[in-house]
């Protein structure tokens, strides 16, 4: 019994310690935005890696989700004789929830894995210490450009995901549910209001911060050889996808409850 209490105590202490470190890591990352000009090339490079190269996966997954969503929603609405509301329902779910979530989860896997593995390998081969020893702040050089790039690129990727999802939905609506495209798009877009866009637009920025900081922090904390890199990469992805889902819920709740236009 005493052993178990001790074990819990140890775990709790470690957790608090990690949270402290994470807080310190995050503030240092935001402070290093002043080095933006110095690492501009690195930022461009990261933008191409996390932005441009993520397009195919976002495209495919959003298309699939948009199509499936429309099939299901149309089938359900048909039962109530309300099939013509398919466009509206699809648009709301895609712009508020599915677009941001699909993008967030895909990127937390793709970008998170890359950050965790790359920085973890640099950590265990002492390259991060070498940066420090040679007078370079590893956070400004490695983490800040990744965060900057994510903040710039996640929003357009989400917009792309919304668009592809809606188009996919439109195609399915026409072929499968025989809804006239004009009607689909009208019902989809006409009744959207500002807060629907706000919900969809805030999320990618929050996700960018969560995914980048969590995965980079885990990379920096890797220890114990190649297996350690694996562990810290997994941890980065699991924690950041979990946080993406939680944050998604609260952003929707906060914005939809508090905005009235």
């Amino acid at each position, binding site marked *: 019994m005493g052993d178990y209490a001790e074990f819990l105590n140890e775990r709790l202490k470690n957790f608090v310690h990690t949270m402290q470190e994470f807080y310190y890591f995050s503030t240092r990352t935001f402070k290093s935005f002043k080095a933006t000009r110095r690492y501009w090339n690195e930022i461009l490079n990261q933008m191409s890696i996390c932005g441009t190269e993520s397009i195919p996966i976002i495209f495919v997954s959003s298309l699939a989700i948009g199509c499936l969503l429309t099939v299901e929603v149309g089938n359900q609405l048909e039962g109530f004789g309300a099939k013509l509301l398919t466009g509206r329902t699809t648009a709301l779910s895609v712009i508020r929830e599915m677009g941001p979530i699909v993008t967030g989860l895909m990127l937390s896997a793709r970008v998170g894995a890359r950050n965790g593995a790359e920085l973890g390998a640099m950590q265990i*081969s*002492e*390259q991060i*210490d*070498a940066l420090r*020893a*040679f*007078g*370079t*702040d590893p956070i400004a050089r490695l983490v800040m450009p990744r965060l900057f790039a994510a903040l710039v690129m996640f929003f357009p990727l989400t917009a792309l995901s919304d668009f592809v999802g809606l188009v996919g939905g439109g195609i399915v609506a026409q072929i499968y549910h025989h809804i006239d495209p004009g009607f689909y798009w009208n019902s989809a877009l006409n009744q959207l209001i500002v807060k629907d866009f706000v919900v969809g637009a805030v999320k990618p920025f929050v996700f960018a911060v969560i995914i980048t900081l969590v995965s980079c922090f885990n990379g920096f904390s890797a220890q114990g050889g190649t297996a350690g890199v694996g562990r810290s990469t997994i941890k980065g992805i699991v924690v950041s996808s979990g946080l993406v889902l939680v944050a998604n819920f609260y952003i929707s709740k906060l914005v939809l409850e508090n905005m009235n236009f």
Partner: protein
Amino acid sequence: MIEFKDVHLYYSGREVLKEISMHIPDGKITAILGPSGSGKSTIIRLMLGLIQPTYGEIFVDGIEISKFSEEELFPIRKKMGIVFQGNALFDSMTVSENMGFFLRENLNLPEHEIARRVDEQLKFAGLETHAHQLPDSLSGGMRKRVAIGRALIFEPEMILFDEPTAGLDPVSSNKILAFIGQLKKEKGLGAVMVTHIINDVFSIADDVLILYHGEIIFHDEPNKMQECDHPFVQSFLLDPEEL
């Protein structure tokens, strides 16, 4: 000049360094000898402020650095070049980018001046023909020379070597040792050399410091080692392979 006063270091509750007090002079080659896991690399990391001691004080040229922030440590680190145990070359950069790294990051030099100094260093290390290769495509000895070149390029006052000969064949390792000796003779460059190979110590070190389970059990000239009566020193003088 580097000085440790009563330095203790704990890793997750385990005392890795116990009461380390020592004094490393400029312009000499000081070897730190000890078995694997005795805390040699840890000492090197403390000297650069890469980690902080649990308690105790560390002085570099009379300045106490153990509580310094990263920014405050920068001028200290500029005085010391380091060659890591596994080289720690930046594997996404070419040999010449690795060598010029410090210059490009920290000094506001024009690009042609950086190129000139890098070329000079490449020639010095005998790596001209490999300038545009990635470190992964080089042999162990070459990688070591890149790491040394990267540490020398900004003309530090002292250079720290963590196991410079580990994993090298005898020819390469003699070359590296001769090179460290030559740096001292020609440029008066002091060095701290971590090793577990006794021959390295006899061939170039002025002073040797023996670390055993996190404690310093001997600190004097190499040829005084015979007189040391610590059982560990005695046993490995008889059988150096034991380390």
